[in-house]
């Protein structure tokens, strides 16, 4: 086509007309879709509730699925989710009343009681091989008298059952037809009832969630959440500063946090998310003496260590439980830094000349500054701390097998009763269970069982307080530090409430223009 002045003019005219019609069109049709770019920090391993591992995967699943109950983002309290209400009289029979009209993603219809029964039965089925089956093992029978009612009968009273059915692991409700349609790829084709559904995934670089328009609380404000996999903490901070991402899922480097804070980023965080413990192997002849364990606790000044190394990321811990947990008691004994008391206890136990404490650790971060401090503090009371660093799988295996003297462990569970049972009850002794200290004190065991069964809330609290007191006197585990979780983000990203499972409900999150 030959271009002359006339054709140019007519082209300009057409362009002007097109532009003006688009200006007249309703603004909403042209409103830009909101996309939030979030840093994801590890390899995704799938989102099947029956065998989901690791916090970052759990966080995605938390937004795709729902439970009968869930955790409030701000207070951490149990609140209704798929179940609008529930009742129990004896902590044995639990009746849940489901919300009407809750829609599945991907056009799978409405949620009914049958879906709840299917989900729990799937976890309990040995063929599923779910590591969370034991969480539901207390269920004796389940019934659905009508499509919106679920009645669960337990074999023994459990005052903490609402945690078990929360939007987490075994508590997440799945759809039978969707599970069967996905076959062996179920972890990559999750279908839930949460505010977002999985749109696409490239396990090497990106996970994309899209808004579930039929979400029962109404559609979320953001259309698309684009999770970019950035493993290195320093690179992630640069990506945020560069404006490539809006929100940084977890930043674990104190110096990066300081830089980001100084540059005016929003420091979304949750404090006291989990306790890092020292597991003391009680089958060790030296550590089996309670005086030695107490001496170690008195010898290390964790408040000073956390203040010096990572004041944002860590706080000192004084119990297996955290102050925000409903059954936490602050009456249990504390071990404030006291080297003289430590030396006296060691002398009394026959280790006046000290001993060698072998500590198993992971090589993931090399010898940490915290470990250097611990070595120094212990040497001042005559304990020679020797560090053995192995890679994570080896560490997990040896810790489970009891092939260590002292090792670390993080307690990320939100259910305090689960923590106490798993770590202190002799039935849960490692390698089968999580009681890695191999601790067995009948007095504590009885109190713990009584606490779980107690229906009177006040009596229950007293019993749990007693459990914490005995545990902190016997000291099979030494609480070292509590960790804080940070998700730095742009100032215009609002509603990032990290709950005590270190998860964010993206239904609350919005981008302000």
């Amino acid at each position, binding site marked *: 086509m030959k271009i002359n002045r006339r054709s140019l003019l007519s082209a300009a005219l057409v362009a002007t007309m097109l532009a003006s019609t688009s200006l007249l069109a309703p603004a909403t049709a042209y409103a830009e879709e909101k996309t939030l770019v979030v840093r994801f920090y590890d390899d995704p391993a799938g989102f099947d509730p029956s065998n989901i591992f690791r916090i970052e995967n759990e966080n995605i699943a938390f937004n795709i699925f729902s439970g009968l109950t869930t955790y409030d983002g701000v207070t951490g309290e149990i609140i209704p989710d798929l179940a609008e209400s529930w009742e129990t009289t004896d902590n044995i029979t639990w009746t849940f009343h489901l919300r009407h009209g809750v829609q599945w993603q991907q056009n799978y219809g409405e949620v009914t009681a049958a879906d709840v029964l299917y989900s729990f039965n799937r976890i309990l089925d040995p063929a599923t091989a779910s590591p969370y089956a034991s969480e539901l093992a207390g269920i004796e029978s389940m019934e659905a008298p009508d499509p919106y009612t679920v009645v669960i009968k337990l074999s023994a009273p459990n005052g903490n059952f609402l945690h078990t059915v929360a939007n987490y692991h075994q508590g997440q409700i799945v759809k039978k037809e969707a599970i069967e349609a996905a076959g062996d790829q179920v972890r990559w084709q999750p279908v839930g009832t949460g505010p977002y559904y999985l749109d696409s995934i490239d396990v*090497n670089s990106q996970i994309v969630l899209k808004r579930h328009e039929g979400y029962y609380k109404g559609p979320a404000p953001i259309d698309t959440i684009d999770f970019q996999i950035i493993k290195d903490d*320093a690179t992630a901070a640069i990506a945020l500063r560069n404006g490539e991402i809006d929100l940084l899922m977890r930043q674990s480097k104190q110096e990066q946090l300081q830089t980001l804070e100084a540059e005016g980023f929003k420091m979304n965080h949750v404090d006291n998310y989990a306790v890092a413990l020292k597991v003391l192997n009680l089958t060790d002849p030296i550590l089996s003496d309670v005086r030695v364990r107490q001496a170690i606790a008195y010898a290390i000044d964790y408040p000073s260590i956390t203040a010096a190394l990572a004041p944002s990321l860590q706080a000192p811990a004084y119990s297996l439980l955290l102050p925000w947990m409903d059954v936490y008691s602050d009456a249990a004994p504390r071990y404030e830094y006291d080297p003289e008391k430590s030396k006296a206890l060691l002398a009394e136990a026959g280790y006046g000349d000290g001993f060698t404490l072998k500590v198993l650790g992971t090589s993931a971060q090399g010898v940490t500054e915290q470990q250097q401090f611990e070595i120094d503090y212990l040497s001042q009371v005559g304990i020679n701390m020797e560090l053995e660093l192995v890679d994570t*799988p080896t560490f997990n295996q040896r810790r489970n097998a009891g092939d260590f003297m002292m090792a670390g462990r993080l307690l990320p569970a939100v259910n305090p009763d689960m923590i106490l049972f798993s770590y202190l009850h002799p039935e849960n002794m490692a390698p089968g269970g999580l009681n890695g200290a191999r601790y067995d004190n009948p007095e504590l065991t009885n109190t713990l069982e009584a606490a779980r069964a107690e229906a009177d809330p006040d009596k229950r609290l007293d019993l749990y307080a007693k459990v914490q007191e005995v545990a902190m006197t016997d000291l099979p585990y030494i609480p070292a530090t509590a960790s804080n979780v940070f998700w730095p983000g742009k100032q215009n990203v609002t509603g990032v409430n990290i709950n005590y499972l270190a998860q964010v409900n993206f239904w609350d999150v919005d981008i302000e223009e």
Partner: protein
Amino acid sequence: MLTYSLKRLAQLSFTVLGVVTLVFFTMRMIPGDPISAMAGDNLSGAALDQVRNQMGLNEPLLLQYLHYLGGLAVLDFGNTVTTKLPIIQLILDALPVTVSIAIGTIALTVLIAIPLGTLAAYTAHKGHKMLDNAITGLAMVLDLMPSFWTSLVCLLIFSLALGWFPASGTVTIDDPVQLLRRIALPVLVLSMAQIATMARITRTSVLEVLNEDYVRTARSMGWSELRVLFRHALKNAALPIVTVIGLSFGNLLNGTVIVEFIFTLPGIGSLLVGGINSRDYQMVQTLILFYALIFVIINFATDLVYRVFDPRVQI
């Protein structure tokens, strides 16, 4: 030439089988398994054993090995243990990223290192020590800088301060512009180390050749210095340089681990590190087999090139 090639190939196949077997058994000798790697702090031993059983990890080792060889025979590389995704697909997705980095690095290296090395050799030959010292000194400094450090420095300068390249973002071969922008810094970082080695090798081998009689003859025929240098000296000095290029390419294909991690590039190196950390036996076995094949092919190709340059070469 054909007999020579066949003989080399037969030798190399045995090498590959040896590698496959060795990797299979050593992976299982390392303490910890895929399940203990996944476990973290939250799961008990009994729960994990249940998963282990379902994954077939409690079967006898020999049986697992035979299964593996049987799969290989029909080119079935299986799924990853942890994520159940087809391994070959993961590798094919990651390969273009790593290969692009490797090719980019070799190209940049050759472009800079060979003229630099030749120049150093020439000035040394002429007795101008200063330029030669400067070049070899620079090569030494480049060689000493660890890549995790140069990576972060490059990110701070070119990404954060100047804003030329992104620090993160999706990478696929389908978007060549984005791919180039994402691999530019890794290529720069990796080239720094490669340039050092290759410039030094070039310098040494060119210097040796410059003292040969035929170079003197060429000069006496009145040819220009450049022609003498590139036509005669460099061509004859090429053998060790070709070897180094070949080996560097192989090394780059599996040695980009650190830059891939820091620049968050979904390449082969990231797959391998992830596989080892999560004890994903199937993934590590397949990747090592893949590396072995690359080395075998590169060795084979280098041998053939040698033979072209110097027909006296024998097995």
